[in-house]
């Protein structure tokens, strides 16, 4: 496959209405530009998966892109609530959002199982919590060796995972470093993976703790400098904390949010 491709082409080719889509990046390397392209192309009825929905999913939810959300922590980090997420759950605006809540450990392990093409993962958690009532994603299993009862989480296998990374090489292999979150697992759990990168270099530098994803595990690579803004890409940018603070004001009010969407060419299409 020729690469890199333009982001609009990557999204048009690989993200379809009704897909289960994971945009990962744990506080760092959040693929905002790709998210905006998904909204711009008017995708609908997505089941969004992400450990920390963050401002990126608050935007997509407000824009009416998602019908369902699988997540583990839905706050604006260091600021407070995600008001668009809350409005969708509490007041069904722009429409009802069905939520499936995991713990971080639960969702991280659901990706691990998905990456290994296993039906579920095992962890020692959830016991006694009301989260266990979501029996379609959380259950219990007995260890065949010790008899210990453990939590089981159903594997997550997105149709598409999108991540942002620092580098690609000319073949389309991808390298990311710093806080690398759950991106390796989210990419390998998916049927198709799209990566936006800061730049292409002839040869990868030596980097302690870097994650390298081979090109044949990916469907598309697009060069999008600053594609993680207002989150950041270590070595390229710093987190725009002011934007996260301002989002609290913008997102609190439907009118202010719609004005923001219009200003940024992300207007929600008529809801069907």
């Amino acid at each position, binding site marked *: 496959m020729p690469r890199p491709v333009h982001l609009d082409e990557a999204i048009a080719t690989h993200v379809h209405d009704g897909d289960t889509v994971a945009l990962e990046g744990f*506080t760092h390397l959040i693929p905002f530009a790709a998210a905006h392209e998904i909204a711009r192309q008017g995708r609908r009825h997505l089941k969004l998966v992400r450990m920390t929905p963050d401002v990126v999913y608050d935007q997509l939810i407000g824009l009416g892109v998602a019908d369902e959300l699988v997540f*583990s922590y839905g706050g604006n980090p260091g600021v407070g609530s995600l008001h668009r997420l809350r409005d969708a759950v509490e007041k069904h605006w722009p429409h009802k959002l069905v*939520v499936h809540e995991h713990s971080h450990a639960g969702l991280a392990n659901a990706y691990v199982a998905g990456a290994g093409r296993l039906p579920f993962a095992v962890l020692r*958690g959830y016991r*006694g919590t009301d989260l266990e009532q979501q029996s379609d994603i959380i259950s219990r299993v007995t260890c065949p060796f010790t008899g210990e009862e453990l939590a089981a989480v159903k594997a997550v296998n997105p149709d598409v995972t999108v991540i942002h990374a620092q580098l690609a090489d000319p073949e389309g292999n991808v390298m990311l470093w710093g806080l690398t979150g759950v991106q390796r697992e989210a990419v390998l759990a998916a049927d198709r993976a799209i990566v936006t990168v800061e730049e292409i270099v002839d040869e990868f530098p030596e980097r302690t703790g870097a994650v390298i994803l081979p090109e044949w595990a990916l469907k598309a690579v697009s060069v999008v400098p600053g594609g993680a803004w207002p989150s950041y890409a270590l070595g390229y940018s710093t987190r725009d904390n002011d934007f996260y603070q301002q989002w609290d004001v913008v997102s609190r009010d439907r009118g202010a949010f719609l004005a923001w969407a219009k200003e940024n060419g992300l207007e929600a299409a008529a809801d069907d």
Partner: protein
Amino acid sequence: MTESWNSADMMNVAAARELHDGDVCLVGVGPPNLAANLARHTHAPGCRLVYESGAIDAKPRRLPLSIGDDDLAATATSVVSVPEMFNYWVGAGRIDVGFLGAAQIDRFANINTTVIGDHDNPKTRLPGAGGAPEIAANAGRVIVIVKQSLRTFVEQVDFVTSVGYGPTGRERQAPGAGPTLVITDHGVLEPDPATNELTMTRLHPGVTVEQARAATGWDLKVADSIQTVPVPTDTELDMLRRLRAREVI
């Protein structure tokens, strides 16, 4: 010089004092972040800070605004993936102290951070579980930091996101000891050794038992010999101010 302080300062200082030198501490955003860094810069320089974003032994040069600040990865001994963090470090019991917050807490220290009201039709959708359920289960001990009010200290939580001692205080089945301290803006509560019912054992200076009772949605148990928490020292207040100002320390 004696600096003035308020109940939020006292709550953070009281929480910081509970960290011991050498403790491995899992830190979240908000008051825990402030308390853990205060401890590290005062009496517990050897306390190890672990952030669930993957930074192990982070030594942030100034107070991080979020758990994803670049300074955490840059100063950490090791940076691990999120699955590794929760499976090999938190889940495996390598955390001595975990800090948790709460939107609601009951007398047996069960915690709600999911919804106010009905789960499927909530009055308020809260941020959700995050790392809390596994920290509550697996950390050696858990310190809850929460403001005490009728809204937070409730007879029954609307949803159990993280387990303290269970519905009647006897149902806890987890490797860690559970919430051994609940630190509020009124004082400190500890589970009764026999029943696990949260008991007010210490009050902050100037706070009365009556005020604590009035801020609690159940018939609050109070220790026979209730202690007073020592006032914040100038050293503690000065460092708290510098951390909040995000000075490079």
